[in-house]
């Protein structure tokens, strides 16, 4: 009996590719992603992008500019022409922090010669940059002048924000919202599998509307369901943490509808290509975990290695999170928010269209 039970379970597992992937491939893939992320946050390997502005333009300041540019922990992503430009880059989230060299570090001064500008949405980044710059100053003996009683070499400053909420509450409202959008849209779209299996879809598609209207109806419902779901998350965020949704209601509605449309389309495509609920559940769990881990729903993107940050920009999770950050925290220009919304809607509509095409091909045998 025991052997028979073991055999039937082994056969069941071996013949279910989805279960095999879930059992053996997914854990390793998830481990690799989390290992990559957390090995990057350990401090000695964390690589941060900075904007660098040399306001002093002295021999000593140029030495420290060269040192920062040559450092393997700091990536000089931008060299703005003014402090205002640097502040804007930090505010927009284009870089993790900004470094302003106000005066020659080798000369005595009342103020700290170097200012590191950080943003509350990346709370770890600026202090790490401060530590790194201090080390570079020491290594280059830039601070060799007698600074007894003077200000420290490096000063940490934060970008001023009008927002009342903490940055993480804004970040995770978006990150959790997109995560649950994907989960609930996948669950909702699984009705499509039942409808195919028991020929309901045949009935629906032979009706006046046809397949296109059947898919469109599902797409719209899942989009509205997702909008409501994310709406509830942000209502809680606004009520308890002061996230300024009402101040940006139009933009929030646009981004939320776009994110919900993305999840609806992706879920319909997933359920169009899967033959059984079990397959769809396995595949959706796999995809949602991977997308959420890589896309920043679990861990902020800036803590990831640079290569993974680049990869994460290909995920709809990152588009949605960045759009909410731009809208509710950074106050970025409407063009960038519209771009992310367009990417999300495009992804959703393209996925729903592919689902329709797949189902049409299936119906025609």
């Amino acid at each position, binding site marked *: 009996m025991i052997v028979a039970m073991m055999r039937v379970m082994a056969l069941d597992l071996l013949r279910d590719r989805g279960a095999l992937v879930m059992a053996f491939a997914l854990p390793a893939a998830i481990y690799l992603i989390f290992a990559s992320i957390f090995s990057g946050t350990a401090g000695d390997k964390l690589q941060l992008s900075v904007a660098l502005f040399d306001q002093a333009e002295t021999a000593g300041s140029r030495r420290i500019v060269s040192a920062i540019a040559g450092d393997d922990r700091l990536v000089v992503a931008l060299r703005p022409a003014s402090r205002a430009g640097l502040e804007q880059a930090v505010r927009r989230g284009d870089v993790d922090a900004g470094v302003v060299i106000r005066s020659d570090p080798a000369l005595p001064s009342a103020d700290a010669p170097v200012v590191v500008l950080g943003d509350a949405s990346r709370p770890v980044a600026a202090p790490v940059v401060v530590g790194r710059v201090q080390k570079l100053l020491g290594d280059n003996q830039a601070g060799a002048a007698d600074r007894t009683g003077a200000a420290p070499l490096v000063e940490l400053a934060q970008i001023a924000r009008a927002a009342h909420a903490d940055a993480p509450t804004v970040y995770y409202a978006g990150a959790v919202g997109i995560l649950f959008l994907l989960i609930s849209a996948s669950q909702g779209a699984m009705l499509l599998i039942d409808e195919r299996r*028991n020929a*309901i879809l*045949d009935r629906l598609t*032979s009706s*006046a509307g046809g397949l296109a209207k*059947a898919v469109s109806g599902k797409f719209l419902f899942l989009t509205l369901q997702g909008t409501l779901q994310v709406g509830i998350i942000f209502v809680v965020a606004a009520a308890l943490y002061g996230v300024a949704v009402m101040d940006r209601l139009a933009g929030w509605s646009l981004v939320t509808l776009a994110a919900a449309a993305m999840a609806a389309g992706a879920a319909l495509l997933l359920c169009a290509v899967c033959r059984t609920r079990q397959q769809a559940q396995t595949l959706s769990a796999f995809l949602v975990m991977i997308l959420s881990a890589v896309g920043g729903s679990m861990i902020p993107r800036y803590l990831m290695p640079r290569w993974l940050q680049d990869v994460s920009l290909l995920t709809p999770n990152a588009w949605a999170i960045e759009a909410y950050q731009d809208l509710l925290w950074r106050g970025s220009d409407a063009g960038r928010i519209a771009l992310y919304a367009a990417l999300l809607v495009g992804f959703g509509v393209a996925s729903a269209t592919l689902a329709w095409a797949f189902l049409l091909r299936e119906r025609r*045998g």
Partner: protein
Amino acid sequence: MTDAATMTKPEARKALDGNGAAPVVRVRNAVHAFKGRGVFSGLDLDLFKGEIYGLLGPNGVGKTTLMKAISGRVRLNGGEILIEGADILREPSRLSAIGFAPQEISLYHHLTVKENLQVFAGAAGVPQAADLIRILMDETGLAARADQICATLSGGYQRRVNICVALLKRPRVLLLDEPTVGIDIDAREAIHRLLDDLRRKGAAILVSTHDLDQAQRLCSRVGLVQNGRIGLEGRPEALVREAFGDRLEVVAELRAPADAPQRAALEADGFAPHVSETQWVRYDAADAVDVADLQRRLSHSGLRVREIRVREPDLSSLFLRGTQQETAP
């Protein structure tokens, strides 16, 4: 014995449709293959107003495919399907005349009867759906269960709802794929009464079924799908009479399969293999049946006979003979 395949088509149709009306559904020279295997090879079928046509045949001969083709869900590789005289490929709007109840219970099981009908009526764009749903639930005996969740209904009631959905478009043609499979006798009788009522109201009904008793009692005409075409076709009683005349079916059921000499003896005695290795059949004139003598002769050949049954042949006799001819080498 007359070849039933040659006696039916124009004569039977003329007899059935004496006023010369054109068929509501006409399938002409249908050709279809699935995954490289031919399903139809020149199949013809006519369905007239006010008739129930039983589509018979073993599994895999294409009964469901034919229904799907008529309802526009499968596109044939060749031939044409006319609904009320118009080709469905050129005038797909003609498909609105068709209601199709698939073999599966194609319902939302977590919704009530009424909610299911509302959903499908909405999808079909049925005007004044609320009134129609009420009328249909009355007609199909579902009114008392309107608010019951479908998953909690008996199989028979689920079948009724399945058919009721197909009636939402008030179709002039109703296609029913195995409408009584897996339900008890009472439920089957209720569905028979429903279909007969629809027929009397003028619907043209095409039913695929394995239930030959059902086909014999319910159908105005039946057709046996053989080798990709309609082989036998006609009124059930006429087909049986034409094939067997006044003869009776004599089935010898053995206790064990016959060996080679015993098989030769059975065949020499006019028997042919029946539904299993232990059953053999022959057809005798009514006044020539002598069970005691037959029992004696079979026992003399060394056969251990469990019983000998004598009865009037029916559609199942014809069906078995037809399918055996089809599978014979």
